[in-house]
């Protein structure tokens, strides 16, 4: 049992403790409220009132960092630098030699216009422990905060010198250098980074891309990397970075050179070259792609990619041939169709690309890897070249048929079937073509289905069934967002305009059109000329004249073509094709006869005589290009 004295004493102590706790709690609550109020004043820009509260708070608790920092911010905002300096100096008495406070003090001196004192303080921060990189970072951060980028960079460099370690602050220096447009310096830092940690190649590329998109940045990076690679010719990451820079500048030839080294140095046995070749082909740098693919093939090491490299090489040669074919088009040096499997004696080379060469490559591939997907793709290309380049219909049909029957790739098989049907049309086997097309109407892909519908409508038209052609064409034109809708509309209107008024003329016209499709140009020409004589009042006369002019051009009869086009323009006032014919006259002068003044004059006729024509914009553009305007 406790005595009453003991109980009283116990109660007294308990009450005293409770009272003290309540006072302390009350004080804490008041301080918290004041702090919140000061912060809200700060946010609303009422710095005077915020400072007043922070001063009270700091007085009640001089060691509290939140109060100290709030007051410091307030003084700075009010530009009371002297007070802010005093505040930090007071704090330094408690936290002697604190590098953050010292650097902060330097910043305040800098803001108050005492740059030399600031510099001394910052130097002091470092001088206390010159091997400590954290101190350099603290000072550099202060300098960056005060927009002293070049000085900050010098501080980082000083850290390297002091620690005799060039690995510090690579990213920081690189970023600052890039921002200061010192691209060579930035590149050197990234090179240093890659030398140290090759796995950071992608990171360095991503960072460097902020300036390699500009010519001056790219050139600077190129200079540095070429120099670095000269010093370290065996470094794969550096060569990879150099190749990347070259590709950024679309210099695939130089990039290929680097990839040759990369491939050899990394023992990739052609794999690196192969990937590069694919990239070059994607970027339409076919010559370089062809070289790279050829080198992979010549190495004969990676059996897995060898067929793909061969296919890539053949494809590149084919694309290069398109270019050379375009160049030689007007010099009439088209190639003649080779017989199937007729191997040419001359070796295939990217320096002298030809469709025959591409064909030869595809045929070798098909033979070497029979039944494979590569072989099927090669067969498809064989069919394509034989059909579109040489108009070798039997050869094309055989190739497409092979793909259609044996390919495991459904898309490729479908393309081959469509192409085969086109070949049948060219061979005048219209029912054969129809039987190829009809099953494809079930294709789940809308664009393919529409294409098949259009081809069937053309067949109807060629065969003299304009009604069924119109039905099919109308179903295509319902969806005007497709590319085919325009072609379909054009044919539909042509049929509609002539089917009732001149059905016989339309039938004849369709037959002549079929001859054009079959590339029987001379025969088609005669038939169109016959239509003009037989049906002189039919609406399609002007279409016929345009076709005749086009056929004259295909047969190399430029003067006759111009004569017909002029007749169409001058003697057929009601014709809606006069503007098109006039445009054609301009094109003949520009591209065939290379007669600039007459080409301009012809295009100007579009502007004066057909100001509402669809060709007006193109005519304007052609005139301006021909007279050398900067567009």
């Amino acid at each position: 049992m406790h005595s009453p004295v003991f109980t009283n004493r116990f109660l007294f102590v308990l009450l005293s403790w409770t009272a003290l706790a309540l006072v302390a709690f009350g004080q804490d609550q008041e301080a918290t409220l004041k702090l919140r109020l000061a912060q809200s004043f700060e946010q609303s820009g009422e710095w005077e009132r915020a400072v007043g509260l922070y001063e009270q708070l700091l007085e009640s608790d001089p060691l509290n960092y939140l109060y100290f920092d709030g007051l410091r911010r307030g003084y700075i905002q009010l530009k009371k630098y002297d007070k802010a300096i005093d505040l930090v100096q007071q704090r330094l008495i408690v936290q002697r030699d604190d590098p953050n406070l010292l650097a902060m003090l330097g910043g305040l001196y800098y803001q108050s216009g005492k740059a030399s004192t600031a510099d001394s303080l910052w130097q002091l921060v470092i001088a206390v422990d010159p091997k400590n990189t954290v101190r350099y970072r603290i000072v550099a951060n202060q300098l960056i905060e005060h927009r002293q980028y070049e000085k900050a960079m010098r501080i980082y460099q000083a850290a390297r010198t002091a620690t005799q370690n060039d690995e510090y602050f690579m990213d920081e220096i690189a970023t600052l250098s890039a921002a200061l447009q010192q691209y060579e310096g930035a590149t050197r830092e990234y090179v240093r980074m890659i030398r140290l940690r090759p796995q950071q190649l992608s990171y360095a590329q991503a960072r460097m891309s902020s300036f390699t998109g500009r010519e001056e940045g790219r050139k600077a990076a190129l200079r540095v990397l070429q120099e670095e690679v000269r010093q370290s010719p065996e470094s794969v990451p550096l060569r990879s970075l150099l190749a990347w820079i070259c590709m950024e500048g679309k210099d695939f030839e130089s990039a290929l050179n680097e990839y040759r080294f990369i491939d050899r140095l990394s023992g990739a046995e052609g794999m690196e070259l192969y990937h590069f070749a694919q990239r070059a082909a994607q970027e339409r740098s076919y010559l370089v792609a062809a070289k790279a693919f050829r080198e992979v093939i010549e190495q004969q090491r990676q059996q897995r990619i060898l067929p793909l490299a061969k296919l890539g090489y053949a494809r590149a040669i084919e694309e290069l041939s398109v270019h050379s074919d375009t160049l030689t088009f007007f010099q009439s040096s088209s190639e003649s169709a080779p017989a199937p499997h007729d191997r040419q004696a001359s070796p295939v080379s990217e320096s002298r690309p030809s469709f025959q060469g591409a064909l030869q490559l595809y045929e070798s591939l098909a033979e070497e890897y029979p039944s494979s997907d590569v072989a099927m793709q090669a067969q498809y290309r064989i069919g394509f070249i034989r059909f579109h380049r040489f108009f070798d219909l039997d050869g094309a049909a055989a190739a497409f048929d092979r793909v259609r029957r044996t390919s495991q790739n459904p898309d490729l098989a479908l393309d081959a079937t469509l192409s085969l049907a086109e070949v049948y049309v060219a061979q005048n086997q219209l029912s054969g073509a129809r039987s190829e097309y009809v099953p494809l109407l079930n294709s789940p892909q809308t664009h393919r289905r529409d294409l098949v519908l259009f081809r069937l409508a053309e067949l109807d038209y060629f065969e003299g069934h304009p009604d069924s052609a119109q039905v099919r064409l109308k179903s295509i034109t319902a969806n005007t967002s497709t590319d085919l809708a325009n072609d379909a509309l054009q044919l539909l209107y042509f049929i509609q305009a002539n089917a009732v008024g001149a059905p016989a003329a339309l039938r004849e016209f369709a037959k002549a059109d079929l001859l054009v499709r079959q590339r029987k140009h001379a025969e088609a020409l005669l038939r169109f000329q016959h239509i003009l004589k037989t049906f002189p009042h039919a609406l399609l006369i002007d279409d016929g004249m345009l076709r005749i002019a086009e056929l004259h051009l295909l047969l190399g009869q430029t003067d006759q073509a111009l004569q017909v086009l002029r007749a169409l323009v001058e003697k057929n006032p009601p014709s809606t094709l006069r503007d098109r014919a006039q445009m054609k006259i301009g094109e003949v002068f520009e591209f065939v006869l290379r007669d600039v003044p007459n080409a301009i004059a012809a295009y100007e006729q579009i502007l004066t005589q057909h100001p509402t024509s669809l060709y007006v914009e193109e005519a304007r553009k052609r005139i301006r290009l021909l007279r050398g305007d900067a567009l």
Partner: protein
Amino acid sequence: MNRLARHRMNGGSEQGAASRSQVFLNVIRQWVMLGIVLHVFVLNSFSQSKLLIPMDLTQTNHLKSYGIAFWVLEHGGEVDWLLNYRGGSFLTDFNERVARECRIRGVSFETLGAVEATNLYAEVQRDDNNMDVVRLEKAPKIAVYVPPNFKPWDDAVTLALEYAEIPYTKIWDEEVLSGKLAEYDWLHLHHEDFTGQYGKFYSNYRHAQWYIEQQILYEKEATRLGFKKVSELKKTVARSIREYIGGGGFMFAMCSATDSYDIALAAENVDICDVMFDGDPPDPDAQKKLDFSKTLAFENFTLDMNPLRYEYSDIDIPTSDPPPQRDPNTDYFTLFEFSAKYDPVPTMLTQNHVAIVKGFMGQTTAFRKSLLKRTVVILAQREGTEEIKYIHGNFGRGTFTWYGGHDPEDYQHAVGDPPTDLNLHKNSPGYRLILNNVLFPAAKKKQQKT
């Protein structure tokens, strides 16, 4: 004064009847001669047919029409700007070269015979018609104030100039400070921030490479030209431009170049930039220290000094931060109509083929009406609101015209957005307002009716 009158004044009653009739005959003869001369003169004046570039809805390419007018002036020709006639059409002497150029650039035109041209002039100058003729005589020399890293698609005016094929010269701070402005008739201010706060993009773009580079570039330029801060440099540039206007220059500004320019002038002696912009905090009493007597167009505005807000002051309406949620389909502004004969300048600046123009946003979209100085002429306004889109004013011997918004054909143009293809907006009424300004300095000063 004719001879008869002079004779009477000299007391000719002393002369005999014969000599009086002789004098009378002489006077008659002289009147007849004068009539013939005048007749011949008038016939000569209109003997050649004219080429009319209509600027109403029949025009196929309004923007390039301005380029044609400029081209004629450049080649020594003269152009009459027919204010309020068919949307502010252009009339020039018919010349096959001009016609050809119109056709090639896609500008539609009509040819007028002498009689038609005479009738047209008579109609335009009739007192009961709100129309007039302003003769454009000389192609103005155009300067565009842009930084070296400028891309043409950043700015609607340069886009318009490029599209209309009107030549211009790029100038920046050094040229302005070295007095080169005097060489130009017309100055356009790019989407520039004259307050030195780097467009107030800090909040969203402070880590973006372009922002950092821009800041460094500007700071270097300021240091090179002898300024401690970019804001100080920009203020000095703003004052130089004001002197240029005062001396007779024409200044045109769009978007943030408008309000930031006036803010820079008002803040001539006060630091309004926060620490992240110029390395030290702003003057806490900056607002109170603004001097509105220095500005051209605005007064009593309140600065927005929060560095994290994408806004300079309350001049801009609606505020850009947060961006307003508006339906572009219902955002239009109305051009005011002025008397062509009494107020030819505002009339020139508002020539258009429509009276209601599609609105568009910008960092500075429109100007708050209550903050405009009374001397400023309002050219266009969003009906029923405080939003003034287009203003004009005089300063000294020159003028300034300001147009709110960034790109008339891109409702809300954002950083990094692709450039507007003006081939798709050949008849843009919003862009026409820009090009009215380009031709305005070419106008021959004419004695006003008042």
